[in-house]
């Protein structure tokens, strides 16, 4: 019934779309329709984002075990964090991961994007092939496969032992397990790659020609033309990947479990948060952790924006 009303209303609306002069009464008219169309989004935002965030902020100041009513404890949860060795451990692990994974992933994305930027046959295929991993990379199955690849006497271990590096499987080795997850992240470079590719297409060919005339080699052209020209794109990717990396969960949880096995080397922030909330029934504490993460990511983002002034150049920028 409703659909038929919509259908019958359509020709009338279409007829009104391009009047010679807009009817004057309508100009300041009723934004009601606008609000109505926005309402799914507004309701969604209030119910699914603002509401839960406010609730979690409140809960972070309480002792809440999910069953009984939250008990106000003020800043207790936050104070406890500082004394919590496992929390500090999770901060260390996550920070180490972000510092390793983000540059590696961006470097891989940029390198492959530059390769794919050249004209050659089967380009579409290569682009799809390199993008593939980031479509499936966050899934549980890939994490399981990854774990299998890096196990004792599996593919990676054998390859390494051929070149004389006997690692004995990275999964059970606390010195290598983090690196394994870093590589998993770097392998999913597809999304930033596509963005880099778009950025590279925007660099005017004249600049390269001019640089070449001036005698600049490949490396020089990269440093003096490519990098500055794509710096806004690079910055965008850097921000996105940094924020994403702080929130690594699925692969870590699948490979390392809730304890960040082996020996706590993959105890990521979110893994510990989940463990606290859902297995220790300390939702207040977990909420406080979530807000500290937000604060941390916010700080890092702000710092990135600050440094960006020095190296990100926008076209038409007068500085």
């Amino acid at each position, binding site marked *: 019934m409703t659909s038929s009303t919509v259908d019958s209303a359509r020709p009338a609306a279409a007829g009104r779309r391009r009047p010679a002069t807009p009817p004057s009464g309508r100009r300041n008219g*009723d*934004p*009601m329709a606008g*609000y*109505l169309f926005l*309402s799914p989004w507004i309701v969604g935002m209030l119910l699914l984002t603002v509401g839960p965030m406010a609730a979690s902020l409140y809960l972070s100041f309480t002792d809440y*075990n*999910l*069953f*009984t009513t939250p008990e106000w404890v003020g800043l207790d949860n936050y104070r406890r964090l500082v004394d919590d060795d496992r929390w500090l451990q999770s901060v260390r692990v996550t920070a180490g991961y972000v510092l390793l994974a983000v540059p590696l992933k961006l470097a891989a994305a940029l390198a492959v994007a530059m390769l794919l930027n050249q004209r050659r046959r089967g380009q579409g295929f290569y682009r799809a092939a390199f993008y593939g991993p980031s479509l499936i990379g966050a899934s549980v199955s890939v994490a399981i496969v990854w*774990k299998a690849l890096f*196990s*004792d006497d599996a593919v990676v271990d054998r390859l390494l032992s051929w070149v004389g590096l006997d690692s*004995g*499987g990275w*999964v*059970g*080795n*606390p010195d290598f397990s983090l690196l394994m997850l870093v590589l998993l992240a770097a392998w999913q470079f597809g999304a930033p790659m596509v963005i880099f590719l778009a950025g590279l297409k925007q660099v005017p060919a004249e600049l390269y020609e001019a640089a070449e005339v001036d005698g600049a080699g490949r490396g020089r052209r990269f440093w003096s033309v490519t990098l500055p020209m794509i710096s806004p794109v690079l910055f965008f990717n850097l921000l996105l990947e940094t924020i994403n990396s702080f929130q690594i969960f699925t692969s870590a949880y699948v490979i390392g*479990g*809730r*304890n960040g*096995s*082996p*020996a*706590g080397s993959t105890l990521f922030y979110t893994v510990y948060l989940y*463990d606290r909330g*859902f*297995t*220790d*029934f300390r939702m207040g504490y977990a909420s406080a952790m979530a807000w500290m993460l937000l604060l941390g990511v916010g700080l890092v983002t702000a710092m990135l924006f600050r440094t960006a002034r020095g190296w990100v150049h926008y076209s038409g920028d007068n500085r």
Partner: protein
Amino acid sequence: MAVLKRFTRSLAIIATLCLVATGTVACGDDTESGEVALRYSWWGNADRADLMQQAIDLFEEENPGITVTPSFQEYEAYWQKLTTETAGGNMPDVLQMDFSYLREYADRGVLGGLDEHVGGDLVLDDLLAGFDGAGAVDGTLYAVPVGGNTWSMFYNPALFEQAGVPAPAIGWTWRDYHAAMATIKAETGTYGGGNYTGVIYNLEAQLRQEGSALFTEDGRLGFSKERLARFWQQGMDLIEQDVVLPVETAVQIKPASLWVDDLAASDLSWDNFLTRYAGETDTEIRLGPVPSDNPGQLGQYLKPAMLLSTSADTEHPEAAARLISFMINDPEVGRIFGGNRGLPATNAQRDAAELDGPLAAVAAYEETIADQLTQAPPAPPRGAGSIEAAFIRISEELHYGRIGVAEAVDQLFAEAEEILEP
């Protein structure tokens, strides 16, 4: 302002429409049938879901007027969903409960007390002797066991024989076990066992053999720092002698067990795990008694593995109790499930279940030590699950050599202090 008013008015209309719509649906349900509808949540997989549906069909046939809607998740997801449902005041009427979570839920008043139904809707006369009172917390019955298991020694008879070591038998001591592991490693090259000091239930077994327990009555740790240090030092000695499976290997084969590639000759675990292990290897694995330094005291008990509880808020406590009673007593249900839920908790279902293969072995094993089984400890304190996890984590760091025994002990006690706070 007028706009806002109109906006809120239309919102109100939408909201009213929604209410009316949902209201009629709900009303329709109640008035048309006058039926009792129960929601029943359990953990498991698709296989069990098939069996469960058969059992539920039987129940509905015998109890016209009651419909049961089941829902299930994998174990981890199950607890996550149950905690959120409970927090939201939307707990299922009947739910599967785990021994280690029982007190967590019971203490917080979200489980329904079952005592008033016992003898009426809930028949418990046929429970195995070891299950008397299992599922009670501080004198109130909150759960009824569906199945049970007991801690035990798993061993590979071929390797024991090859090394000339006698098979585990009642009366063997922990010292015997250590010697056996060393001999097997020396004679066969296969590790003698898993490092049992990474699992809290082995400490529990030793403590019970000494007449104490993992937790005290008032929910504190039931052992001293020195006792735990002695236990963990034993594990370090075994590592030094290179007779137990190295932690690096144990960690990376998870979630599989050490049986998967015949990595070691023995391990300690819950006896019903035999079905799982038998699926992981073609090698024959047998069950034997847990070593004990105290003759006549194995420290083993029948643990309620899977229990059924009701919600404190259920509108149909009688029907819920009747469903639980049916699920644990009905012989036909026992036949349907076989060993799927562990060994059944009632005699009628044990007799009805056609146990073959590994489960027959488990049943036979439980038979042989039946007179050695002692009373199960009371439901573990709130946070027991977290302590078990901390035990695994800290002993792992210890086995990796990242911390020393003294430091590991201090860490566990510090965490227990925090977890077990009243």
